């Protein structure tokens, strides 16, 4: 193997990603939006103009002004500050949920596909059992019996979501393991861990990225829908879906109050889907 200096790797990968964005400008837009949103989410405590939870009944349903750029909601809370604070709730939580699910699903899928035999059968039957219920129904069941709340519903989603990743990774692993280069690597003395790390993970990476990008978007939609229904984030939390549900009774006199949170969800999910679509186009020549 040739040795690569760290700077070389950085410039190379920077160049590669720039080339990718040039080839798929749509994905570039998606990445740009996602980067901005992530930045807002990580800096949200310093970006909020006003306290997002401060209730001032004297200031309710104010029109946009310098102090409140998007106006105030039915409890006099600054809408833009709530939106910014909600970035962390909605996007941050979906991101974390997806990360956890991937960290569970990918190793299990690799293990099942690589080890085959009993372990594979056991893991896949487990997946069959857990995947029998749609995640939304499970979330409703959990919220219904154990009480509404973001932690409960996220747990319910995670219980089902890992299966998709495990199945995807297992399928790729099974088909790759039949190929000659893996056999050659085994003959050359590579151990299981080395094969997984050097060969299988690389094969898995791009389909995984496509799935994960779309999945973050889907999770955002799911979490905000559950919060809208009152099963997820509870008031006064500035979660976007919950904000929409708060603004619902006032939409005739103050439609902005429900328009902004929905627009935020739309933009973020759109960014995720743009990235996923762009990746898919780059990987899969057939769909072009």
């Amino acid at each position, binding site marked *: 193997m040739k040795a690569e200096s760290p700077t070389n790797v950085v410039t190379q990968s920077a160049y590669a990603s720039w080339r990718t964005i040039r080839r798929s400008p749509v994905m570039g837009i998606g990445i740009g939006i996602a980067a901005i949103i992530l930045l807002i989410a990580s800096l949200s405590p310093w970006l909020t103009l006003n306290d997002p939870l401060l209730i001032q009944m004297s200031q309710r349903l104010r029109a946009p002004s310098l102090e409140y750029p998007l106006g105030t909601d039915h409890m006099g809370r600054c809408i833009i500050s709530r939106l910014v604070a909600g970035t962390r709730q909605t996007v941050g939580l979906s991101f974390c949920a997806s990360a956890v699910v991937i960290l569970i699903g990918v190793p299990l899928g690799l293990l099942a596909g690589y080890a085959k035999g009993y372990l594979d059968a056991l893991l896949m039957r487990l997946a069959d059992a857990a995947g029998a219920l*749609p995640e939304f129904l499970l979330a409703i*069941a959990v919220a*219904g019996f154990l*009480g509404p709340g973001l932690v409960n519903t996220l747990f319910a989603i995670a219980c089902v979501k890992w299966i998709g990743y495990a199945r995807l990774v297992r399928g790729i692993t099974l088909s790759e393991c039949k190929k000659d280069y893996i056999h050659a690597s085994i003959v050359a003395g590579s151990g299981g861990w080395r094969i997984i790390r050097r060969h299988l993970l690389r094969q898995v990476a791009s389909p995984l990225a496509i799935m994960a990008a779309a999945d973050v978007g889907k999770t955002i939609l799911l979490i905000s829908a559950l919060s809208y229904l*009152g099963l997820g984030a509870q008031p006064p939390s500035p979660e976007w879906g919950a904000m929409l*549900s708060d603004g619902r009774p006032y*939409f005739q006199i103050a439609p902005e109050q429900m328009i902004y949170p929905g627009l935020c969800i739309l933009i973020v*999910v759109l960014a995720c*889907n743009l990235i996923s679509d762009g990746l898919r186009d780059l990987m899969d020549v057939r769909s072009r």
Partner: protein
Amino acid sequence: MFKHVGLRLLQLVLMLIVLSLVTFVLMKMAPGDPVLAVLKADERPVTEANQQVVRQALGLDKPLYQQYGSWLLQVARFDMGRSYTTNQDVWQLLMERLPATVSLMFSSMLALLVFAVPLGLLAAVYCGRSVDHASRMIALLGASIPSFWLGLLLIYLFSYRLNWLPMMGGGSLYHLILPSVTLGFVMAPEYIRLLRSGLLEGLSQEYIRAARARGIREWRVTAIYAMRPALLPIVSLLGVSMGALIAGSVVTETLFGWPGLGSMAMEAITQRNYPVIQGYILLTGLGIGLANWLSDVGLLLLDPKIRHEKGMSA
């Protein structure tokens, strides 16, 4: 063929067992002690002896697997208890609400096809041209827009501003339009994409060239000859998206005040009406399982490749 159908049936049974287990376990974990609730309802003092009597009467002193068994037998006889709030039989309540949800689901499917078929068809015929890009943009929008937001915007525009359609409630066909459009639009993208790629693949086949050579008109070639194989994955997606449809129906029913199962479940959750929640989960779970199974079997019947294959392995 029969082996395949049987295997799917086995999967359905497995799913129902998991469904019942999950429901049972969650019910056991739900806060609140049923023994205390009964004693309180009967206004009897909470003594150790009284608790013991009630526990025995409810069968709660038996081991868990026996409790599960007797609960399962009850549920299988459609005996799901009574609603805490109205004291109505839960099965009757479910059956009262079911037609509204089923009609919403059918009209949403219709709306979905109205969006998806033309868009997928146009995208495939004009592949790579601006119509294709426009169709793709619409699909992206549908996949990204939150359904409850779209519904609210539609209510705002068509009910409040234009006053064309009723805002909320159920009963008439007019009430059905906005919820169906909402649900159909957010579910259409997957179908558009699938139809487009299926048609593109179909159009590149030899038999299409043969059909064109025979002088069959182009729209006929596309809409009938190439469409047939492209419809197969659509059928299987219809079964798979049953879960999404149920989920979507909860959101849209609540949003539009449509008197179906979904809005009933949401009410039940806020009232902690456990028997109703239990009934909803079991019924919709059963519905989803059956839909998946039917679409699998339908696929077997439709696809000549599977139908004629011998020595099928799963």
